[in-house]
């Protein structure tokens, strides 16, 4: 549980950051540092258990259908990386308050960094491949956010590049997860690693290569190393934390974790050693050429990550211990160096070594601390860097197999270290020697220096006191690969080969640093930008251009160009299906009736008129006729509910469209030039033919489905309703219906949001007795009976527009009560006969629409209906009916039957109340539509384009 608690704690910290920064400003970092340390302390309480070779685990079901559990597991290896994430994080958090400017966006920085620390924790604690992958991606995304956080355009390119490279690695990891899960049938990391023998050869090779790719991208190995120096556009705390101490170590963690599975195989080991040492040398060479301190440290990080990867490839207990120890050492001294460079940059306004000469005269403490951390980087005693490098040399000479391989590896390691020594010396020398170039420089406040000083001293003291780390490192090494006891870590091993190599490093490194001028000229000849980076950049730009090309049709003003492709795809799909489809079952006779052909004929005529007319009114009316024809057809097809619903919807659609088009040009747009019309017609014919063929091929070829027979048999006994369609809607599939009703509610809310504001200019919205402005619906226009004088500022024309139409008003007065009564009857009898909530509400809505047509200013009585209250009531009603049975321990939306008391006959089921909720929501949509889309009283901008001009 403690693992989940620490993760939750981290999340909580991120959550309270805004409150903290509001209270303390940038000083919130100090509290966050304490918070990180509390998390680390919580993890450390389990140290005895872990040193006892037991892991701490917690797990809860996540995706039980695919057997994935959200499992966390902490062994010593995880603990080391978790402590690094939290410990270095605490240093950085304590560093941030003085680094960040007082008026910056520190909340964003703190929140993202804290979330990142949580993601990093989750990554190293994950006990399931999917969990691991999720956290892995989270670190990439948060890194992207942190690099590009200040929104400078200069940061956008590098941030994108970093994201592209690391997320490509993330995809590789996902593929590896799929391979492993597919061939082993589990995503449980512990089980997968426990029995490496289970995996067959082919998946091993594939998964191994993919894991390598993931780790190499994350840990910036050649040839993917170019993203890391680019990421240095981020602020220094981010560089120190993500791109030196933690995130780039995720690749190292992954390699160590999977060593149990893939290690010891020739290809894995050789790849790791080869790529790792190559990266170590390339990175160090590039670092040696840098004058920008941050760039120097970035390439140095690349180089040292390479060294780590190489050592992991050796695969002995000693090498695993060396890798873990050096991971700790590197995190400590590199984070320190970054913090100090940040301080120098902050104080001197420059990170260029050439402008920082003689800095020791004015900032002696800062420079001394830098020198201390650089000693660790160069591997000089007594620092932890020295012990770590010794261990690495020791491990490299011990490569399995042929003797010369070990010596080659050690030689390459020494070469990388010599270069490292040289650039470390150069860094320190640049700050020590030479004249001071700037005036007015001084030491920073002690509070700015303190975190870096503490880290620098820790990194130094841990050298002689390395024995403190020994139990944990040994345990972690055997967790990575259970194959024997790692050697005890000690500061002094006696006169060993490794010590000799260290001495050799120092001598050669001093020579290299001494002959700076000559070597500089040599290195300057090396290509500056890694060619791979340029290729990636060009590839990315080409991709973006290609995307723009593909998307071009979608940017047309008319739907035609971008609908053409999906429509052609429909035709193509039908053609392919026709070619590939096997023999279909024979149709069960021709189900057509004579009436069908009549409908079809009338339909064809109506549609022909619809396609050719240029009058908007005629088009709307003909569309309505199409709907009425279809509802007649539905009636003959045994679907009276559908027919009635469709008929009402047609009427309502016509009403709403008329309302929306009131005062609009009565002509449809010109159909366009003949070739376009012909092309459209051809495409339309093709799609129509495809649809017809599909319908003919895929319907009417089987007996009624078991579900159909079940509903027909069970509906009445189960629900007491005779109308099977209605019982399906409100009893059996009530959740679907609720979903549909919610969609309608969303449309209503969207309508209110879309047509908010200027739809009703102040003129119409002037308060009057009948015009109560209300949130949710626009302020209704003044009532018809209101004197025009009462409408301050109204346009002269709007008074005419608000006058009710006498004929329609009469019709409304006569018909509305009938319609409402019929609506109530249809609704109430819905369970037994044709009717129900949808139909009832549509009929009532028609009355509302009629009212609006007759009284543009707001109909009496029905004009007072408001969409949002109706919507809320309906939704709450439906939800209450759904939730009520849950109190009795039954499923959501189970119908409850209540016997009517006393004189009333029969019984009432809760589905009637549910249907009432649906009724109200549908009515709300209609009310919103009628009110919102009515253009008449909107008092449009003066001078509308006269009709018929175009």
């Amino acid at each position, binding site marked *: 549980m403690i693992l989940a608690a620490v993760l939750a704690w981290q999340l909580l910290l991120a959550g309270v950051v805004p409150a903290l920064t509001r209270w303390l400003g940038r000083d919130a970092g100090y509290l966050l540092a304490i918070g990180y340390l509390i998390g680390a302390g919580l993890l450390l309480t389990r140290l005895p258990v872990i040193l006892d070779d037991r892991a701490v685990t917690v797990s809860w079901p996540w995706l039980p259908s695919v057997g994935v559990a959200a499992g966390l597991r902490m062994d010593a290896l995880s603990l080391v990386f978790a402590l690094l994430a939290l410990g270095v994080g605490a240093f950085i958090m304590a560093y941030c308050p003085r680094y960040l400017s007082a008026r910056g966006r520190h909340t964003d920085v703190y929140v993202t960094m804290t979330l990142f620390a949580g993601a990093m924790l989750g990554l190293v604690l994950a006990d399931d491949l999917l969990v691991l992958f999720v956290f892995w991606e989270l670190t990439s995304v948060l890194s992207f956010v942190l690099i590009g956080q200040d929104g400078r355009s200069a940061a956008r390119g590098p941030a994108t590049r970093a994201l592209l490279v690391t997320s490509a690695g993330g995809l590789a990891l996902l593929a590896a997860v799929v391979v492993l899960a597919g061939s082993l049938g589990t995503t449980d990391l512990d089980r997968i690693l426990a029995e490496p023998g289970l995996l067959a050869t082919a998946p091993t090779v594939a998964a191994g290569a993919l894991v390598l790719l993931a780790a190499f991208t994350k840990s910036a190995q050649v040839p993917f190393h170019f993203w890391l120096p680019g990421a240095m556009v981020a602020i220094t705390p981010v560089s120190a934390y993500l791109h030196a101490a933690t995130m780039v170590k995720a690749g190292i963690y992954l390699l160590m974790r999977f060593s149990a599975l893939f290690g010891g195989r020739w290809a894995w080991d050789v790849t790791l050693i080869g790529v790792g040492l190559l990266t170590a040398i390339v990175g160090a060479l590039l670092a040696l050429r840098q004058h920008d301190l941050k760039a120097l440290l970035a390439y140095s990080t690349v180089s040292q990550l390479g060294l780590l990867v190489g050592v992991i490839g050796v695969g002995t207990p000693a090498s695993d211990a060396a890798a873990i120890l050096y991971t700790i050492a590197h995190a400590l001294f590199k984070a320190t160096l970054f913090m100090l460079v940040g301080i120098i940059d902050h104080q001197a306004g420059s990170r260029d070594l050439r402008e920082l000469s003689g800095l020791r005269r004015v900032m002696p403490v800062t420079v001394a601390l830098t020198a201390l951390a650089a000693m660790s980087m160069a591997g000089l005693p007594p620092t932890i860097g020295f012990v770590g490098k010794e261990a690495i040399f020791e491990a490299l000479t011990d490569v399995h197999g042929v003797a010369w391989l070990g010596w080659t590896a050690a030689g390459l390691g020494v070469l990388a270290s010599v270069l490292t020594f040289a650039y470390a010396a150069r860094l320190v020398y640049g700050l020590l020697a030479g004249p001071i170039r700037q005036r007015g420089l001084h030491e920073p406040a002690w509070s700015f220096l303190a975190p870096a000083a503490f880290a620098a001293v820790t990194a130094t003291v841990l050298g002689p006191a390395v024995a403190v780390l020994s139990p944990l490192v040994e345990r972690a090494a055997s967790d990575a690969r259970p194959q024997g006891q790692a050697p005890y870590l000690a500061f002094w091993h006696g006169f060993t080969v490794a010590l000799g190599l260290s001495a050799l490093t120092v001598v050669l490194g001093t020579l290299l640093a001494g002959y700076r001028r000559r070597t500089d000229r040599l290195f300057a000849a090396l290509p500056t930008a890694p060619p791979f980076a340029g290729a990636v950049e060009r590839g990315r730009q080409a991709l973006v251009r290609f995307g723009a090309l593909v998307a071009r049709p979608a940017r047309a003003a*008319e739907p035609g160009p971008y*609908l053409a492709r999906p429509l052609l795809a429909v035709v193509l799909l039908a053609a392919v299906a026709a070619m590939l489809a096997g023999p279909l079952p024979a149709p069960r006779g021709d189900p057509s009736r004579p009436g*069908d*052909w009549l*409908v*079809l004929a009338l*339909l064809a005529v109506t*549609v022909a008129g619809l396609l050719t007319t240029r009058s*908007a009114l005629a*088009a*709307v009316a003909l*569309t309505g006729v*199409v709907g009425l024809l*279809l509802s007649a*057809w539905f009636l003959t*097809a*045994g679907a*009276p*509910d*559908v027919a009635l*619903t469709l008929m009402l*919807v047609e009427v309502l*659609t016509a009403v*709403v*469209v008329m309302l*929306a*088009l009131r005062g609009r040009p009565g002509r*449809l*747009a*010109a159909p*366009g030039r003949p070739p376009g019309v012909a092309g*459209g017609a051809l*495409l*339309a014919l093709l*799609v*129509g033919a495809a*649809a*017809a063929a599909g*319908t003919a091929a895929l*319907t009417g070829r089987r007996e*009624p*489905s078991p*579900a*159909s027979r079940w509903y027909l*048999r069970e509906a009445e006994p189960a629900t007491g309703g005779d*109308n*099977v*369609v209605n019982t399906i*809607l409100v009893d059996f599939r009530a959740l679907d219906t609720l979903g549909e009703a919610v969609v*309608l509610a969303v449309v209503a809310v*969207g*309508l209110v949001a*879309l*047509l908010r504001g200027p739809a009703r200019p102040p003129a119409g919205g002037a308060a009057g007795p009948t015009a109560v402005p209300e949130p949710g619906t626009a302020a209704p226009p003044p009532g018809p009976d209101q004197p025009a004088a009462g409408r301050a500022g109204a346009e002269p024309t709007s008074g005419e527009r608000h006058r009710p139409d006498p004929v329609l008003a009469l019709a409304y007065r006569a018909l509305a009560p009938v319609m409402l009564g019929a609506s109530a009857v249809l609704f109430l009898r819905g369970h*037994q*006969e044709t009717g129900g909530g*949808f139909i009832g509400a549509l009929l009532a809505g028609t009355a509302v629409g009629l009212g609006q047509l007759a009284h543009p200013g707001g109909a009496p009585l029905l004009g007072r209906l408001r969409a949002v209250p109706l919507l809320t009531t309906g939704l709450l009603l439906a939800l209450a009916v759904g939730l009520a049975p849950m109190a009795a321990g039954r499923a959501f939306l189970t119908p409850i039957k209540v016997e009517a008391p006393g004189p009333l006959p029969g019984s009432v089921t809760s589905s009637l109340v549910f249907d009432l909720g649906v009724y109200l929501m549908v009515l709300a*949509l209609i009310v919103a539509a009628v009110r919102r*889309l009515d253009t008449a009283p909107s008092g449009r901008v003066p001078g509308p384009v006269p009709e018929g001009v*175009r």
Partner: protein
Amino acid sequence: MSAPLIVGVLVAAGVFLLLRPGQLRLVLGFVLLGHAVNVVLLAAGGLRRREAAVDGAGPETVDPLPQAFVLTAIVITFGITIHLLALLRRRRRGRGQRKPEEEEA
């Protein structure tokens, strides 16, 4: 064979309207496509039995399940129509920045 032909006519007309300029045509084309889908759904349940599924089930009673789908589909299509009309109105409101020929319905 009547149902497939009805579907074909409706789809062809709907697509043609979608491809022509003018937003009102877009809305109407969408309505026609909605009708076509409803016919397909009903046809999927079979059109040989045509007795309404009210008051008991006989050998000629229709499949009620597609009807339930169609019923909700009709109302949803209505919702979409309204939404499209709202978009149409919204665009008209911003017509100050638009070319006048886009103003036509």
